[in-house]
């Protein structure tokens, strides 16, 4: 029966090929578009990890804007950070880094450049903010204690100041004070308006000394033990800071805690919607491919009406005729879907609109399965029509 079906398809090679092309495009687009959607969601996940999934940012000011005007709001201080770090009950918090951010001009030789930001912090910052030194080294706790004039440069800043020169060990001038460059950070690559690589990081007291003075800090960066304990860590931070700020009513808190991971989870759900939309578009093209099968099988049945009549005259039962045309349409869809899977997987090796597609294995099986089912379903109408032809009408057909 399979041989008959293959023979039937081979008799009209161009027509069969075009029908298969319909299914092929449908299957390939399902696989490819879902892979693109999945790829962008994987990219978001990666950017969550690069930001540090288990980091919390504490900043001054009420979460509810109204309290700010009361004037009672305390700024965050190094003491708050120390209180958090000293909290022995905590199992959720791994490390704490107070952060001051300022701006200024960096000079090297006759080159002057204003980095996006100058950050003063503790060494824990590097791990929490997922900033890795690519070349050279981090500054240490000793550098913080000694207020040493050392700095780690972001990739962009290093490139602007030094071009191809090796910055490590060189002296730059920041705010009129000479700093020694000890390390250069790995490039993170920007995803937003601000370039995360356009930064100078130095020990907190040094930056306070040169720029901001020993007042409040802008932020406290808290690292939870793991992504799962961020919620616990957030509760912990709230409890400790309410204590140090002597606030009893949590709704009147004069600080806010932002969780990077939760923001990005929201973004991830957007990409999921995007994936579903892409999948729907692809599914429609698969459906159109299925209708193509119906169309071509109807033509085939009409064309072969006489042959159906002969077979019926020879005593072919209804089921045999039905089976023959169903096999033919299913063969079309199986071949089309098989080629579609190949094209889809091959196509996913190329990056599409800046997104590296990641093939979802279920989508391959699903698209193939649906295509085969479509062949059966859309082939059943023409096959049924062939099987229910009256032999006398079929034989008379010219």
């Amino acid at each position, binding site marked *: 029966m399979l041989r008959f079906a293959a023979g039937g398809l081979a*008799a009209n090679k161009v027509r069969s090929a075009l029908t298969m092309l319909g299914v092929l495009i449908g299957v390939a687009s399902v696989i490819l578009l879902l892979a693109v959607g999945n790829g962008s969601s994987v990219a978001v996940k990666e950017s969550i990890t690069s930001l540090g999934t288990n980091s919390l940012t504490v900043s001054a000011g009420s979460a509810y804007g109204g309290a700010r005007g009361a004037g009672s709001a305390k700024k965050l201080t190094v003491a708050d950070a120390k209180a958090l770090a000293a909290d022995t009950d905590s199992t959720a918090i791994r490390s704490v880094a107070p952060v001051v951010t300022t701006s200024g001009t960096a000079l090297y030789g006759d080159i002057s450049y204003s980095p996006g930001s100058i950050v003063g912090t503790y060494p824990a910052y590097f791990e929490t903010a997922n900033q890795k030194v690519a070349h050279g080294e981090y500054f240490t706790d000793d550098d913080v204690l000694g207020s040493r004039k050392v700095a780690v440069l972001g990739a962009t800043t290093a490139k602007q100041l030094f071009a191809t020169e090796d910055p490590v060990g060189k002296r730059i001038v920041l705010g009129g004070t000479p700093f020694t460059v000890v390390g250069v950070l790995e490039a993170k690559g920007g995803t937003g308006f601000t370039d995360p690589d356009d930064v100078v990081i130095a020990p907190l007291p040094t930056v306070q000394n040169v720029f901001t003075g020993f007042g409040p800090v802008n932020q406290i960066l808290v690292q939870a033990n793991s992504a799962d304990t961020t919620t616990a860590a957030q509760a912990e931070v709230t409890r400790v800071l309410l204590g140090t700020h002597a606030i009893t009513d949590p709704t009147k808190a004069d600080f806010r805690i932002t969780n990077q991971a939760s923001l990005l989870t929201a973004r991830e759900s957007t990409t999921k919607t995007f994936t579903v939309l892409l999948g729907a578009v692809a599914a429609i093209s698969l459906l159109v491919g299925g209708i193509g099968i119906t169309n071509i099988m109807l033509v085939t049945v009409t064309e072969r009406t006489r042959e159906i*009549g002969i077979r019926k005259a*020879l005593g072919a039962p209804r089921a045999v005729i039905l089976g023959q045309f169903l096999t033919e349409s299913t063969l079309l869809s199986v071949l089309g879907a098989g080629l579609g899977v190949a094209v889809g997987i091959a196509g996913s090796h190329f990056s599409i609109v800046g997104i590296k597609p990641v093939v979802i294995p279920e989508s391959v099986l699903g698209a193939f399965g649906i295509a085969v089912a479509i062949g059966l379903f859309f082939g059943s109408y023409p096959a049924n029509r062939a099987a229910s032809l009256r032999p*006398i009408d079929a034989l008379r057909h010219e």
Partner: protein
Amino acid sequence: MRHVIDKRVPAAPPPVIQLRRITKAYGHGDAVVHALHGPEDPATGGPLGVSLDIEQGDFVAVMGSSGSGKSTLMNILGCLDVPTAGRYLLDGIDVGHLDEGQLALVRNRKIGFVFQSFNLIPRTTALAQVELPLAYAGVRAAERRRRALAALSLVGLAERAGHRPNQLSGGQQQRVAVARALVTAPAMLLADEPTGNLDSRSTEEVLDLVDALNATGRTVVLITHEDEVARHAKRVLRLVDGRIVDDVRQAPVDGPPPLLRDLGVTA
């Protein structure tokens, strides 16, 4: 006008075909056309239908001009079409009571068709063509092949088993069709103008084959409008306007067909 009078001896085997007052009408209301009419009912003037018996081993030629109802008769005999009224017993089975699946089975087991336009299946080898009715009958592949080859050698085409219809001459195609018709050992061979599309040499070949088959006891019903062809039959029916107007016996049922030539064919 002559009428068939049943004069069978009771001991004889039952007829392969028994038609009882068969009519076939097309269209509705005023536009009704009776393709099979039979004699008029003396009381009402309506059609009485065609009644006909065909004995086992007979060789009947049905003649008539186009529109005489011979093709309709052939379609009803071949269970390809159902009569409007009347009873049809094929090999003792009342065909009127069968559903589509059973009719397919009857066509498969009881009837071998040979058509004017050969009606071979395109792109299929002669062997596969002949195997087809056996495949529908559920015969196993090895047995199928053996019987199909035997049928092909009976029609003298054993060495052409692997050829497709477009690689065979008209006469050869018709011989493949004959092999296909007889491979299931049917009760009746039904041939609709089998030589209509053939040259005179191929016509002789095919008719000799049919003669030989009838000589071995196969019942043959052959539809034709050529007198040359009808001369091969033992009995000739003539149809005009859906009525049997002439019924001539040219040779006894249990004898050889009148024009049988010794071909050395053995069934």
